[in-house]
Structure formats: structure tokens, C-alpha cells
């Protein structure tokens, strides 16, 4: 979707704040939001891509101004309301009206400890051979579609070279709709000079992981 989350290359943003700040947590509520989101119950068909899409759908002003883990928490709340596990009325009154039976129960402490040691794979077998070869020039589609996609706006319509092929990976766009489908995943290398007018003559490059359906032969 063409949302404010698609920040790469947007201009007008100022200096980066907090560069010397070594602390990753500044208030107890931040890390509690992290822990709540990581361990919450969820619907049977939940995927990380659906979660990312739901975060993108927050009010644009909230997206750009609210703290990061706070956005995780409100996105989680939106998903639980969507699943029917929690109602807006319960939130309004701050009291429960019923106990839901979620498709996936909340995580146990043991499962949490096991999950951080599990390097989960997103590889999916794809029968079709890869459409593009290493070094081949490809061009990104112009249209990202209005659902979830991992094709950033700043590479749309731009040409780059296939830098690496990673085999079949869960396609984020489909996964955000609850469908598990694999597609060939590539790292595409773009010359900065081909992306940004002010980078003319620069040696610099930007590497972006892109699925096959995002690309066309150039």
C-alpha cells in the first residue's frame, strides 16, 4: 500500500536524534509492550506479514509520531478486536465481558524461551525455475498494489541487477492475506545514481530483497 510507512528516500526529515544513546529501553512500558506483543494469543491464521500490514494501517499521524513499541501494542489490540477476542466496548469500559477462545493460546514462558532459540525459516519450495539469472538487469513494477507489499516506493520503475537468488521464500504480500505461498526471492543491486538525481556519479549502491513478481526483465 502507498502508506506513510514507506519512508525510504522521503525528503524533509532532519538530523537523526539519540545517536549516542546506548539504552534500548527508556521506560518500563516500552519493554512491556514488546513482551505483550511477543507472547499474546492470536488467530489461527496470524502471520508476521499480517501484523506488519496492520501496523501500516494505523492513522498516518499516529504512525509517524507515536513510539515504536506503543505501535506494536495498539496494532496487537486492533488485531485482537478484528479476531473478535476483544471488543471496543470492553476497552471503553476497561472490564471484560467474556473470555475468548483464541485460535492460538498465549505463549507459555517455556515456549517463549524456546522461540528465541529457533531460527525460523521462511523458505518454501517453488517448483517453477527462477525467472531471472545472476547479473541480469531487471526493472521493478510501478504498481505496488493497495495491500501489503515489500516493494518499496523508491525502487518502483527503477532498474537494477540481480545480485543474489535465495530460492523460494514465503511471499509477504500473500502471507498478509493469510495465504502461504512461496516465490523466488532475489537481492537486487541498484546504483544510487539510478535512484536519486543528486547521486549522479556516485559509486554507492542500494541492495533490496525483492520477490520475483515485483520484477520484470529490463
Amino acid at each position, binding site marked *: *500500500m502507498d502508506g506513510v510507512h514507506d*519512508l*525510504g*528516500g*522521503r525528503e524533509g*526529515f532532519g538530523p*537523526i536524534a*539519540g*545517536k549516542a*544513546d546506548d539504552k*534500548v529501553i527508556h*521506560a518500563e512500558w516500552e519493554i*512491556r*509492550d*514488546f*513482551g505483550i506483543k511477543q*507472547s*499474546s*494469543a492470536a*488467530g489461527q491464521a*496470524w502471520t508476521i506479514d*499480517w501484523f*506488519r*500490514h496492520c*501496523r501500516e494501517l494505523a492513522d498516518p499521524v*499516529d504512525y509517524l509520531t*507515536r*513510539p515504536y513499541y506503543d505501535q506494536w*501494542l495498539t496494532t496487537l*489490540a486492533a*488485531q*485482537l478486536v*478484528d*479476531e473478535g*477476542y476483544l471488543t*471496543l466496548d470492553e476497552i*471503553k469500559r*476497561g*472490564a*471484560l465481558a467474556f*473470555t*475468548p477462545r483464541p*485460535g492460538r493460546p498465549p505463549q*507459555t*514462558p517455556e*515456549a*517463549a524461551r524456546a522461540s*528465541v532459540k529457533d531460527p525460523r525459516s521462511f523458505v518454501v519450495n517453488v517448483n517453477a525455475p527462477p525467472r531471472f539469472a545472476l547479473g541480469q538487469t531487471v526493472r521493478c513494477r510501478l504498481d505496488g498494489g493497495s495491500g501489503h507489499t*515489500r516493494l*518499496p516506493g523508491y525502487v518502483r520503475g527503477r532498474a537494477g541487477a540481480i545480485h543474489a537468488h*535465495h530460492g523460494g521464500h514465503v511471499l*509477504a504480500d500473500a502471507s498478509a492475506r*493469510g495465504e502461504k505461498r512461496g516465490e523466488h526471492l532475489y537481492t537486487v543491486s541498484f546504483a*544510487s545514481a539510478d*535512484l536519486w538525481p543528486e*547521486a549522479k556519479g556516485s559509486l*554507492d*549502491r*542500494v541492495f533490496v*530483497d525483492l520477490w520475483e513478481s515485483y520484477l520484470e526483465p529490463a
Partner: protein
Amino acid sequence: MASFDSKTISHIHHELHSLLPSEPALRTRALESLLAEKKLIDPATVDAWIEMYRDEIGPKRGAAVVARAWVDPAFKARLLADATQAIGEFGFAGHATGHLQAVENTADVHNLVVCTLCSCYPFSILGLSPSWYKSNEYRARAVRDPRGVLAEFGVELDEGTQVRVWDSTSERRYLVLPERPKGVKEWSEAALAKLVTRNSMIGTERDLSPARAKA
């Protein structure tokens, strides 16, 4: 059942905006107690996550991996070939590192990692990400003005050094392998690990020589 419908979620977000308290700390309190009452979270598991990321999992892990790569060429080759496998030798593979790639800084190349679309980060090897990594400013500027961003972090590169920016758009994650500084030839692996900073493994720091801190 999830609606998988963008408009429905957008509508719920707008409702939540007016229903939930205006302070983030109060939103946490309100939702945490309601979710616990409704048995949608187990408070003991929330505490387990906090404990793991407060006490156990952080950039010291990445630093140990980098130091090993500096002293052991065979390990470095394994790290560059398959970083998930290589960090597995330390027991560090896990949360968000199922598809980890190490990218190596050299005299002519400097690597910088960003996630422009959200804030993807290799949790199990670097811990929670710093606030600046998740900021709108960093996400917007790292791909377009990497040298400007690097200069703000005190990294000045000459024009002949290529900057490679890695945008984490898939489930693959990136770890920068910084250059081993000069003048630390006799140093032990443990002492070398102490030189490696979190920012150097994201790419916003380059020179890890012990003298730099005094400069």
C-alpha cells in the same frame, strides 16, 4: 477469524485512537490488565521476554562473533557463507536470524543496514534495536543520503570508498562485519570483542581502533 481486510483494520485503529488513553504508559496499563484478565496473555511470559532481552540477548553476542571472525579465517569464511549456521556455533541463532547474511567492510567498502518499510533487525544477535534505528529520519535518509547519515555518526568516507546500503525488505537480516582495527595484533579474542560496538555491526560506526575513543 482475521478479516485480512485493510479497511476494517483502519477503522478499528481510528476507534482505538479515541478509546485508549492518550499516554503510552497508560495504554500499556489499560491493555495489559484487560488482556491478562481475558487470558490473551500470560503475565509470566511477558516477564520472560523482558528478562531475556534485558539480561541475556544483546550486542555482546554479535561482538563475540565478529571477534571470532577476526582471529579465525575459517570461521570468517563460514560466517560470510552462511551467517545463520555460523552464529549457531555460538548458540546465538534464533529470533529473527533464520536468514542472516554477514556483509564485510573492507578498505574500499562500507556497509550500512536499514529497514525502510518497518524496522526489521536481527534480534537474537544484537538484542533490541536502538531508537535511532527505528526513527523516521534514519529510515527515510539511510538509502538516499547514506554519507550524510554516516557523517552525523562521525564516519567520514572518501569518495573512493563505496557505500553499500542493505534494505531489509524480506525475512533476511544483515550483520555488518567491521574491519579489524590496526594495532591490536597481539590482542586476545575476548579483548577484541570489547572493541566491537553495536553501531559498528549496523554500519553507523567504522573505526574500531582503541585509539579512537581518546581522539
